[in-house]
């Protein structure tokens, strides 16, 4: 893709906290990474996981617990959350890839439900309340992530923002590299025609599993980031609603496009924050978008744009 587009997006990301409410911007980044990680699986390997909240929320709990109760520094907390999600992804993935298609979706949903039960019942998770008041701490033991810098009269949490933005770039970069590597080509081959990929000698199961672990680890990283931003790990993060939401973000933006999931996440998160006055009707609206998307808009808007411009975005 065009280098200038990337530079423009990078500049936009760096300048964003001065124009947009920073916490909102950070939420966007977390969900954009979550959706991009999910898309690695759905868009590039053709596997629909309906349990990705388990990794997102599971990592949020692990990071939250380690930072709050064991005093880990935030970067180590995020690392631990990511590794935990990767390990969990290995377990879930090994089981789920034993079944194909819609069964895969149901297995991931059911396994994620076990994680939900654990989040509800385990002693350190805070049950219905979740983990609250998670401290942001000192990055590398040096930089206070709570520090606000006053710009034009408004205090902005710039330290936290750039930490989150850096993590986002790292995660997004890994996904981009994975997609555009020989490994990514094999994933696409599996998506297009699994028996053929197998007959070419690729160990399909192993590729699927690696993709699953990578996707879940990065989804976990997004969850860990979210837990630092909101200082909260809650049952919502591990619920099937969240699993469904990330599917919608990806579908809306464009399955199998690089920028689509991020664009979809931006849209859904913005809608949710703009439509707080409609209260619980938001579920109905989200459901409606789902239906419309599936019926008439299966490429998503980045996908449609890409088709208009005749290039892959």
């Amino acid at each position, binding site marked *: 893709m065009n280098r200038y587009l990337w530079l423009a997006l990078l500049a936009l990301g760096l300048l964003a906290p001065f124009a947009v409410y920073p916490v909102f911007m950070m939420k966007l980044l977390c969900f954009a990474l979550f959706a991009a990680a999910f898309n690695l699986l759905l868009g590039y390997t053709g596997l629909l996981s309906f349990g990705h909240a388990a990794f997102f929320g599971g990592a949020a709990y692990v990071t939250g617990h380690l930072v709050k109760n064991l005093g880990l520094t935030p970067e180590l907390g995020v690392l631990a959350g990511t590794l935990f999600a990767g390990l969990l992804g290995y377990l879930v993935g090994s089981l789920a890839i034993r079944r194909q298609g819609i069964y895969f979706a149901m297995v991931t949903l059911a396994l994620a*439900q*076990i994680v939900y039960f654990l989040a509800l019942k385990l002693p350190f998770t805070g049950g219905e309340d979740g983990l609250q008041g998670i401290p942001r701490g000192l990055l590398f033991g040096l930089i206070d992530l709570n520090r606000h810098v006053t710009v034009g009269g408004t205090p902005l949490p710039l330290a936290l923002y750039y930490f989150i933005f850096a993590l986002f770039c790292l995660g997004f970069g890994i996904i981009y590299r994975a997609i555009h590597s020989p490994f990514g080509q094999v994933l696409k081959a599996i998506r297009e025609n699994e028996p053929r990929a197998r007959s070419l000698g690729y160990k399909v199961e192993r590729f699927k599993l690696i993709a699953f672990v990578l996707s879940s680890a990065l989804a976990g990283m997004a969850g860990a980031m979210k837990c630092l931003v909101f200082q909260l790990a809650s049952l919502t993060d591990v619920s099937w609603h969240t699993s469904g939401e990330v599917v919608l973000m990806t*579908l809306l933006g464009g399955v199998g496009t690089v920028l689509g999931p991020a664009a979809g996440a931006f849209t859904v998160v913005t809608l949710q924050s703009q439509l707080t006055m409609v209260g619980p009707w938001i579920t109905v609206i989200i459901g409606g978008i789902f239906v419309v998307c599936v019926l008439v808009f299966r490429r998503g808007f980045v996908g449609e744009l890409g088709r208009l411009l005749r290039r892959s975005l």
Partner: protein
Amino acid sequence: MGMSFQTVMSQVMLGLNNGVFYAILSLGLAVIFGLLNIVNFVHGALYMLGAYVALLGFNQLGPLLGRPDFHLNYWAALIVAPLVVGALGVLIEKTMLRRLRKFDHLYGLLLTFGLALIIQGVFTNYFNVSGDAYDGKPEVLSGVVDLGFMLFPRYRVWVIGISLVVCFGTWFVIERTKLGSYLRAGTENPELVKAFGINVPLMITLTYGFGVGLAAFAGVLAAPIYSVSPVMGSEMIITVFAVVVIGGMGSIMGSIVTGLLLGMVEGFTKVVYAPASGTVIFLIMVIVLLVKPAGLFGKEA
């Protein structure tokens, strides 16, 4: 809790009571999956809708019609709810699912997921998430029955009995009658069945309507036992998905038997180790995936 025979049996009977719901719902999923090749995510929401038809029919329909003393009674609800929800199903199939026939099966799952969110969302807006009690349980079904080894609520005996009749009736129609043979043939090769002059699109529509009608029927049965709440379906559907993964959706009998067995296992777990009873079905799913990935009665999708 002591492991006395009575304790075990009463929990297993209560488990069987849950099991018949798993059986009816997974049966409906299997019937729909067989012909339409989609996983009907909205199944749980339509089960909930069935329960609400009973609840609202009893509490609200009379006042709405200007006759405050009118209640849609339980027996009528058992007929009306499946018809209403079945009609809604026909509408869904004709206007939406039909358009997705030629695309990846995953889109059917996603579409019905969206519908589930819409229905659940609407009900969450108007009703209490913690649920309402259904007061329309008929007098005949109140009280307890002496089963010899324990006293068991008469209503639950009725639920188990009628559910088994419905499940095995469905099995009989599909596996042993001419109509069922069309269905099974349609599952194997719709093009060929079409060539024989059978109206396959109509058959698909009616099958979907029937499948979700079953869900609504289960919802009415559930109304007097569980509290009727907007989230009762979504809690149920995830467990039923695990049941379906364990049993495999290839066989009607398989889904019935798996549903009943897992309900009983769940009940038994309540006696042995209560905290695990919420997850035991998922753990069994894990074991089945390790040992027999295609499911107990399944063929690969």
